[in-house]
């Protein structure tokens, strides 16, 4: 298996605070990869660095061998990385369908003039975008809410809508930032199935941050544990779960006062 995403020696400072420290790892193509760690350990920062929201102070990020370090977020998205957010960032007063169609904007080729005059080429393209978007909503069981304003959807649906929107950009690598946050056990079950289905159906590599151990242990094929910006363990979920350092990071050292 070749590495789809390769991070080399990445370091990032917030002022004097070292948020991520000489971080290196590879995400192989086709896996579901988990990144876990206590609060403030640098998980979301890692995502923000990969998607270009921050520029790393040091180091390189390669997507399929191509250097994407320091590029603008929209360019990184276009080269094949889609992501969701820990706190939802839905286009809430737009319809569910338009949330998806907005993510397909960059693939649309109609110019301003042809759009304004609604020429046949534009109409055909609109029809195609609409069909593609409806298909995507179908797969994620959101098709019957397509015309509703996104803000009227229940929380679980919004989580799925964000995944759908990320998939609409046709990524090769899908970054999920705490997809199970705030979900009830039933929704978590559904989410786990969904992530696996998405990986198989859309042929994407999934890279997720999660606090929910059941999710990580249940679906991730590889797990990396982060604490204070450095890796403390990496490997198969069952091995990582027994690692002494990991237990220490999560539960505290033996004998320490809690």
């Amino acid at each position: 298996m070749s590495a789809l995403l390769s991070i080399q020696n990445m370091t990032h400072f917030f002022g004097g605070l070292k948020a991520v420290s000489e971080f290196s790892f590879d995400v192989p193509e086709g896996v579901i990869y988990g990144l876990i760690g206590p609060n403030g350990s640098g998980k979301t920062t890692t995502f923000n660095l990969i998607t270009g929201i921050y520029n790393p102070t040091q180091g390189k990020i390669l997507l399929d061998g191509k250097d994407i370090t320091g590029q603008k977020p929209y360019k990184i998205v276009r080269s094949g990385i889609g992501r969701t957010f820990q706190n939802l960032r839905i286009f809430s007063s737009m319809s569910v369908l338009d949330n998806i169609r907005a993510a397909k904007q960059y693939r649309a080729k109609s110019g301003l003039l042809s759009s304004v005059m609604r020429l046949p080429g534009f109409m055909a393209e609109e029809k195609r975008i609409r069909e593609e978007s409806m298909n995507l909503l179908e797969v994620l069981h959101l098709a019957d809410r397509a015309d509703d304003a996104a803000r009227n959807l229940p929380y679980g649906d919004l989580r799925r809508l964000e995944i759908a929107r990320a998939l609409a950009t046709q990524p090769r690598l899908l970054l999920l930032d705490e997809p199970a946050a705030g979900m009830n056990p039933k929704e978590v079950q559904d989410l786990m199935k969904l992530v696996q289905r998405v990986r198989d159906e859309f042929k994407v590599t999934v890279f997720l941050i999660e606090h929910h151990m059941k999710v990580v242990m249940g679906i991730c094929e590889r797990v990396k544990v982060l604490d204070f910006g450095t890796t403390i363990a990496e490997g198969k979920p069952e091995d990582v779960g027994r690692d002494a350092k990991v237990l220490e990071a999560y539960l505290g050292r033996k004998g320490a006062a809690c």
Partner: protein
Amino acid sequence: MEYKPVLQTLKRIGSWIVFPLLSVGDIVGRKTGRNMPRLTLAALGIYLYIYVLGSTGVFNGYVMHIINLSLIYVALAASLNLINGITGQFSLGHMGFAAVGAYVSGTFTTLLFKLNPSVPGAYLVFVGAIVAGGVAAALMGVLIGFPSLRLKGDYLAIVTLGFGEIIRTILNNISYVGGPRGLLGIPKFSNFTIIFAAAFLTILVIRNLVHSSHGRAFLAIRENELAAELAGIDTTRYKVLSFAIGAGFAGVAGGLFAHLLQMAHPTQYGFMGSVMVLIMVYAGGVGSLTGSIIAAFSLTFLSEGLRGVLDGLGELTNLPLGDLRMVIYALLLILIMLFRTEGLMGNKESKLLMLPEDKR
């Protein structure tokens, strides 16, 4: 003027012109599944209706003038709505763009007709000048669009406000365009037909734009800029584009305004003017073109009505009541913000302005 014959004329013209046009448009629209024929024919109907009333004298010159003003405000409010309501970039300098359009086109036609009063194809030259004014304003829009890349909310509002004032001050100090006296002697070319056409075109272009990939990019930026960027949208490009298009239409409206009043004066394009347009956008509903149209008409008529009433009262009581108009506007805006935050229409559109595929 008798009341009854007026009403009869209105009815007769309505049943002869407008309703047949509307129903033809409705049928064609339903057959083809497209909204264009319906909207165009409805607009044509409204145009003919007002045109006939104007030319038969049912609407006198004063009423027609206010209608013309309202239509110019429709174009201004709709174009500000693109920047403010649809893309979510708070701009307070919209009249600055209108000023650029007014002065560029006004200088052009004034100069040309001074040199040669009987230029062949004068009307085409005028249309060309209006377009040139629009292009100049659009370029200005690109320029002012750049700060919007770094600034958000209140800070952007302050920068755009400053921009409007800079334009006004510059115009005040260029003696070539009249300085504080204003640019005088602009030929009167604006008439109901061209103003109506421009307002209609503005609405049509912005409506169609909103219902395209480009429009969804604008809306996504308003909703959540970071998420828009991570949906692959080049937010930089679209913010500047929004300013350019909005400014372009404001420039066209400004040009028509100058050629309607036959003069352009720096004070017309000051801060209060921009606020007036902003009130129209917010009163009508942010993001709703229907709302902008309704608000532009009702506020322009209200403004003229108030002028009459307040000046009359002022003369009777010997108080400067004319100045109360701006107080009343401010109160109106406060009341809207308190009791109907989403404006008259919210973000809903009239059926006429909706496309068959969108149900909201």
